[in-house]
């Protein structure tokens, strides 16, 4: 156990208050409000996380294309700058809202709560949060989501789950994306699954390609099932 020592000398008497306050209490308080809002309208909230460039936006486009006749879907997408991702998603005909974080490397519950009134929630079955591409801090910020899904692209290398354990520990599903590139890459789906399940034995895994549509039906069936469960509550 390493303890950082203060360089300041103790002076006079001190009064101590032992607390156990979560550092992110302010965030978690807002995340709870979001959860309650979503429960009122039975909207399923799914937080999509991954590194930059692993195919989150392409997956959002493909998912919208496949499910838009079955479910009412909307997306909020976080990036440091530009409206590019929201524009790409809107092209598929669903509502998409860009959250520009202006340099912040993750989305916080407050940012989600601020834009919720832009959505007609009673008429939305499934709301995606496409998080900022980063496997580190998005893991710590609860956004009030029902499920957290992490994309793990074959181009990233199969050693990531142990390098970014908190993200995989807090996720419900890992999508091994860009599976169409497997023949060209030294990437083992078996190895990545084993590593990820050593961190989180309950993690569900689906291998997908938004290009060839491998695994997309399985992914969409999973979403439809979770939406159904939410609406039965």
């Amino acid at each position, binding site marked *: 156990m390493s303890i950082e020592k203060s360089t*300041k000398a103790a002076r006079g008497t*001190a009064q101590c208050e032992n607390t156990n306050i*979560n550092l992110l209490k302010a965030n978690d308080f807002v995340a709870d409000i979001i959860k309650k809002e979503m429960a009122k309208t039975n909207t399923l909230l799914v937080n999509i996380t991954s590194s930059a460039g692993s195919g989150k936006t392409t997956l959002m486009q493909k998912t919208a294309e496949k499910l838009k006749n079955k479910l009412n879907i909307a997306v909020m997408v976080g990036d440091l700058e530009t409206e590019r991702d929201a524009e790409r998603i809107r092209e598929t005909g669903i509502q998409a809202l860009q959250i520009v974080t202006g340099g912040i*490397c993750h989305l916080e519950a407050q940012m989600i709560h601020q834009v919720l009134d832009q959505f007609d929630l009673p008429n939305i079955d499934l709301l995606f949060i496409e998080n900022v591409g980063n496997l580190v801090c998005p893991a710590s910020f609860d956004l009030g989501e029902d499920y957290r899904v992490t994309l793990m692209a074959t181009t990233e290398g199969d050693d990531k789950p142990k390098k970014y354990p908190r993200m995989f520990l807090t996720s419900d599903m890992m999508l091994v994306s860009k599976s169409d590139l497997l023949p060209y890459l030294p990437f083992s789906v078996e190895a990545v699954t084993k590593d990820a399940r050593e961190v989180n034995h309950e993690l569900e895994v689906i291998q997908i390609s938004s290009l060839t549509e491998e695994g997309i039906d399985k992914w969409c069936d999973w979403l439809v099932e979770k939406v159904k469960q939410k609406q039965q509550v």
Partner: protein
Amino acid sequence: MHETSIVNSIMRTLEMEFEQEKLNKMKAIHLKVGILSNIEPRLLHNAYSAYHITNPGYHRVALHIESTKLKIQCEVCNHITDVKNYRFICDNCERPSKNVIQGEEMLIHKVEFDD
């Protein structure tokens, strides 16, 4: 960027928790952060120093950070395992477990005030 958000969150949380009069007497903040919290104590200290540039009111308040190791407790045999190499598996019965009892925390566990 991440550390800056966390420092802001700590100070906002303390301002929610304590009266301003008390905060004026605040002397030290003690944090307990787990290895899984993605908080690097040195970087957090740097971000805390930077915070004082825009918020000079708290510049006398010391920050102490204690890191904690990762431990899980098996739901079946109750054995406590020190997790090594992020293998969340019980040392005793070899069953997988997600029951983290230490190492995930991000806590303000003590605040000191001048009398």
